[in-house]
């Protein structure tokens, strides 16, 4: 077979395979959305779940997912950026830094079930935070920190070294240089990266089964004082997130419409993750031309 036909055949194969992949992906997304969209309604999004009767909603679970996300990002962003700065600015090249980089890499490929079990063992039992939003947030922080560190390092690497030199040459301290010159330039990469990371947290379930718990107490949305036990903002209350709810309804669902609830919740989850991805992409582009090509 001459090289020419081989080339044509190969290109044909590659295109068809990619087409198949695209088709399979769209099919998968379509299947989830198709099965779920029918069930989504304002009632479904806001009302609490029903254990045995029809018409249960995912209100508290949706709120828990979002609130847990905010709580986790509040802990992860400062820690992640701090650690990222240490790795790219303060770490002296050598044995320790490569060892730390290894630690970060190992932590990033840790199975989430182990993070969940560790959460149960240490955060829930030893620190006695119980099944709570805070335990879930700490578990997710551990799960998400390596990604944040890598994102921050990437962001700082994208800052031209001349900017750092220019600032240092003015007699500005290294920390002020990082904070006021390098970080603002690295911001687009860091922000869009952390939104992608947020998308990943939103869909996480394995790490939360044993830390944030599988039940959500009745919430009265009128009481916003975080110290009251049933106020939505109390970080020490158990909080079943959307992903965990899908797992529970799918496996223990007693309600007759359990499958539709699971399908509806999955569709809501996919749409939110989609929004996170698009948001990250749009924000990255917006920030990029705000900072650089601002002719």
């Amino acid at each position, binding site marked *: 077979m001459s090289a020419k036909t081989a080339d044509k055949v190969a290109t044909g194969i590659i295109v068809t395979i990619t087409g198949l992949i695209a088709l399979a992906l769209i099919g998968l997304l379509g299947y989830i959305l198709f099965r779920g969209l029918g069930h989504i309604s304002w009632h479904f999004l806001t009302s609490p779940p029903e254990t045995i009767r029809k018409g249960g909603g995912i209100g508290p679970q949706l709120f828990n997912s979002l609130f847990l996300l905010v709580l986790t990002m509040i802990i992860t962003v400062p820690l992640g950026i701090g650690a990222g700065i240490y790795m790219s600015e303060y770490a*002296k*090249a050598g044995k320790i830094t490569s060892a730390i980089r290894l630690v970060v890499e190992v932590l990033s490929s840790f199975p989430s079930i182990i993070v969940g079990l560790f959460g149960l063992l240490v955060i829930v039992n030893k620190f006695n935070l119980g099944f709570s939003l805070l335990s879930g947030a700490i578990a997710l922080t551990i799960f998400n920190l390596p990604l944040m560190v890598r994102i921050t390092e990437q962001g700082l690497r994208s800052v*031209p*070294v*001349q*900017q*750092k*030199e*220019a*600032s*240092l*040459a*003015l*007699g*500005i*301290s*290294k920390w*002020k240089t990082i904070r*006021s*010159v390098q970080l*603002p*330039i690295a911001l687009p990469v860091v922000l869009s990266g952390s939104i992608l990371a947020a998308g990943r947290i939103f869909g996480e379930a394995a790490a939360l089964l044993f830390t944030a718990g599988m039940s959500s107490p009745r919430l009265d949305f009128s009481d916003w004082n975080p110290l009251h036990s049933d106020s939505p903002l109390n970080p020490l209350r158990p909080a079943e997130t959307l992903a965990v709810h899908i797992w529970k309804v799918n496996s223990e669902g007693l309600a007759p419409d359990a499958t539709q609830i699971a399908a509806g919740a999955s569709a809501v989850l996919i749409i939110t993750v989609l929004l996170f991805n698009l948001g990250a992409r749009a924000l990255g582009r917006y920030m990029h031309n705000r*900072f*650089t090509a*601002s*002719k």
Partner: protein
Amino acid sequence: MTEIALSAKQLNVHYGEKHAVHDVSLDFEEKEVTALIGPSGCGKSTFLRSLNRMNDLIPSCRVTGDIWLKDQNINGASTDVVALRKNIGMVWQRPNPFHKSIYENIAFGPRYHGVKNKKQLDEIVEQSLRKAAIWEETKDRLHKSALALSGGQQQRLCIARTIAVKPDVILMDEPASALDPISTSKIEELISELKQDYSIVIVTHNMHQAARVSDKTAFFLNGHVVEYDKTETIFTNPTHQRTNDYITGRFG
């Protein structure tokens, strides 16, 4: 005999095994322009960068010997590097203004160094921009981004930024080689004006530029200072043959 603003004694610079600068001792007169010339890779830029310890940013680089700024040894281990850099400004070949507004570029340094009230800052900004001969072109868009300026304007902005923190010495690493001829001549005029207030050390490839702006010139070759004298002597009758060959363009 004017005072010595800055002097290097037995300065050596090593990049890993490569010995870039060999026992260079140079004194820079106050309020004078000294040019460092020589073929590329002769260590003149490396030498310049050691003066305000910018080489500290390069992990594999080791700088030995003394650098005296008035009564303080810059290269001492215990020197407070950050404070020293406030007294020695630097301008690079490619203009590198901050990704901030023109005003913020200038005000960033002084505000950090303790000038808090707004009126004083405005005054410093205007003064610096005027001294850098760029006030007219920027006075009505101070809060626009500095990246919107042309190459020549940006370089003058960098100079304005540097003098805003009132250094004693300004180091310039080929400040005009990336600019068009008109901007280059503007920079050269600016340098001769700045001479009244600051001692300037300038690295350049362009010998005519060195002749035009500098009072003294040092000729670098393979990390050594071959000759260091008044600019006219260097360019009219240099003592060393190799300096003469380089001046007449026979090599490098």
